[in-house]
């Protein structure tokens, strides 16, 4: 009897230990031990409670391989493979992977994509992590590889092949090849390629080596009110309290097999069946609402989107708004063409609303948290922590003024080197690409995007061994047409 008890979930426990060792070996140069941070972070019992699920559509290759992995509560779309990995409530969204036959231009090279790109996750433990986009590493264009990596709650791995790294809660690595790095809580890195770096919590770093370099550092004493992460404890702070508060609403959508949308969805818009929609929500044409998004009294104008883990509450988005993965918009009015970056937290108050003028760019991982009304004028770039007009003065610049910057400038804890015009152009181009990919410009015949292609997804469920040594591990599953 003793033997049986101690051996329950043996394979899963061994897998966890193996992943921790794989990550630590890669981080030995930084002398970083991930074990104290992740031990008991997700109890093993949780890993056997939830099913995994994958989407089938005519628009994405059907090619899944799950080998010796736990996929509790995780979602897969597109060509994906997991090996020796634990994915807990993570979204592996392969709807922007490169297709066979595409030609990629990189510097002076034209590279033909010889087979459909796949997301490959090996020897990794991802907790409530979003994996999206495609590999931007010109050396691995057909393989978006995440290996020997451990990521924690609400991290985003976006177009970033990652090896031997650790991501703290709400950290994002975007369009960056990353090897042997530690990314602190709520840090955002978009830097092309990074190796052997330990990034402090609350670091916002956007670098294009030829044109510009942007870096902002949050004051850690103030950031800890929103998020902090210590060894031996789960992530804590207002961000965690906020998502925990809304957790219950998601239970119904995950427990019910067939669910009808509670609002009218135009035929050219997409509302994921794993999103939560509360009353007084309006969805206009070409809107995309992704899984795990939460909308309550939200007005989404034409071409607006709400990506994974977004919360839009008592807010109005006039149209062509990008609400990037993990962004939260509360008691806020947004004009048209506003970009709200990854994991940003915008919070007005019921009688003291936040108002953002058209064509503003809210940098990824911005916190705008006000107690008195605040208006951000149109066409501004905003970054970092803003709680009052004085903060806004320090942590913003008009795009017109920024365009005139030739060498660099600094304000507060933000440093910018390079030409402002190239920075603004890069952001505008990316925002346009996101809107285009999401189908915001669909005219009924041309420019279909996710809002049109992701409308009718069939979801199939997969489950782990229910007991014994293999309890919690999913059997090897290969799914092809």
């Amino acid at each position, binding site marked *: 009897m003793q033997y049986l008890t101690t051996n329950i979930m043996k394979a899963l426990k061994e897998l966890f230990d193996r992943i921790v060792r794989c990550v630590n070996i890669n981080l030995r140069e930084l002398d970083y031990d991930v074990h104290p941070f992740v031990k008991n972070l997700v109890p093993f019992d949780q890993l056997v409670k939830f099913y995994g699920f994958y989407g089938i559509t005519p628009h994405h290759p059907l090619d899944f391989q799950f080998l010796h992995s736990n996929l509790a509560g995780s979602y897969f779309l597109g060509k994906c493979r997991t090996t020796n990995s634990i994915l807990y409530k993570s979204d592996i969204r392969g709807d922007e992977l490169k297709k066979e036959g595409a030609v990629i231009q990189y510097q002076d090279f034209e590279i033909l994509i010889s087979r459909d790109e796949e997301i490959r996750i090996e020897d990794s433990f991802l907790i409530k992590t979003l994996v999206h986009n495609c590999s931007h590493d010109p050396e691995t264009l057909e393989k978006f590889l995440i290996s020997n990596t451990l990521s924690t709650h609400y991290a985003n791995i976006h177009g970033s092949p990652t090896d031997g790294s650790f991501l703290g809660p709400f950290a994002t690595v975007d369009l960056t090849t990353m090897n042997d790095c530690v990314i602190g809580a709520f840090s955002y890195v978009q830097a092309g390629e990074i190796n052997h770096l330990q990034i402090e919590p609350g670091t916002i770093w956007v670098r294009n080596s030829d044109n510009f*370099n942007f*870096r902002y550092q949050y004051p850690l004493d103030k950031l800890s009110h929103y998020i902090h992460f210590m060894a031996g404890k789960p992530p804590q702070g207002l961000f965690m309290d906020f998502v925990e508060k809304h957790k219950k609403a998601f239970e119904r959508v995950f427990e019910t097999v067939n669910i009808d949308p509670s609002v009218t969805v135009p035929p050219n818009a997409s509302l994921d069946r794993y999103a939560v929609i509360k009353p007084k929500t309006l969805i206009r044409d070409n809107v995309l609402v992704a899984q795990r998004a939460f909308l309550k009294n939200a007005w989404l104008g034409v071409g607006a989107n709400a990506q994974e883990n977004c919360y839009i509450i008592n807010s109005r988005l006039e149209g062509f708004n990008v609400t990037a993965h993990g962004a939260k918009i509360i008691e806020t009015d947004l004009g048209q063409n506003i970009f709200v970056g990854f994991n940003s937290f915008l919070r007005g108050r019921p009688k003291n609303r936040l108002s953002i003028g058209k064509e503003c760019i809210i940098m990824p991982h911005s916190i705008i948290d006000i107690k008195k009304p605040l208006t951000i004028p149109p066409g501004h770039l905003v970054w970092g922590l803003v709680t009052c007009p004085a903060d806004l003065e320090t942590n913003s610049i008009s795009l017109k003024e920024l365009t005139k910057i030739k060498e*660099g400038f600094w304000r507060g*804890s933000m*440093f910018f*080197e390079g030409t402002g015009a190239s920075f603004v152009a890069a952001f505008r181009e990316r925002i346009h690409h996101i809107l285009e990919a999401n189908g915001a410009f669909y005219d009924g015949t041309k420019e279909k995007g996710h809002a049109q292609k992701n409308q009718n997804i069939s979801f199939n469920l997969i489950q782990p061994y229910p007991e014994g040594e293999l309890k919690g591990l999913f059997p090897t599953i290969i799914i092809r047409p």
Partner: protein
Amino acid sequence: MENYLVKDLMVPLSEYATVPMGSTLFEAVLALEKAQEEFDRTKYKHRGVLILDPKKPVVGKLSHLHALSALEPKQDKVDSIQELGQFGFSSNFIRQLRKQRRQQIAPLEDLCKKAAELKVEDFMHISAEDEFIDHEATLDMAIDQLVQEKLLSLMVTQDDNTIGILRLADVFAAVYHSMAECSI
């Protein structure tokens, strides 16, 4: 080249500027001046002060650079500027930033007041293991240690006690002296 030993070239502790723990920067500077006056003027000048402690004779060293660093106005943001290099900011950008920040804060004002308040132990350099050498060691070994570790001086020991200091300047003078005698 003559077979010098470390003990032949070192400055004995008794001839070097020293102050006890708890001294102020002002007292250290006075000790340096006094030692310099008493020192053989044909030799290189002293460039530091040794910090002494009754329990462990030499506990630290104070160079010109340490003294000037201690007098510099404290800047909260200096560290964040230093970090910019690892984020790929150019050295030119960092230099400009540092220059502007330096201009924004007060120059070396209240020099005397500051020097009288700062305690040497708060900013002295504590010698690492590779900064010590035995008094019987050869000049070659001393040169190797100075070059490999990029040091300006070595603490000279005898039976675990620090008995003097071997300065790069004196080592160089000995080498120069030998070279001068060569008939090339």
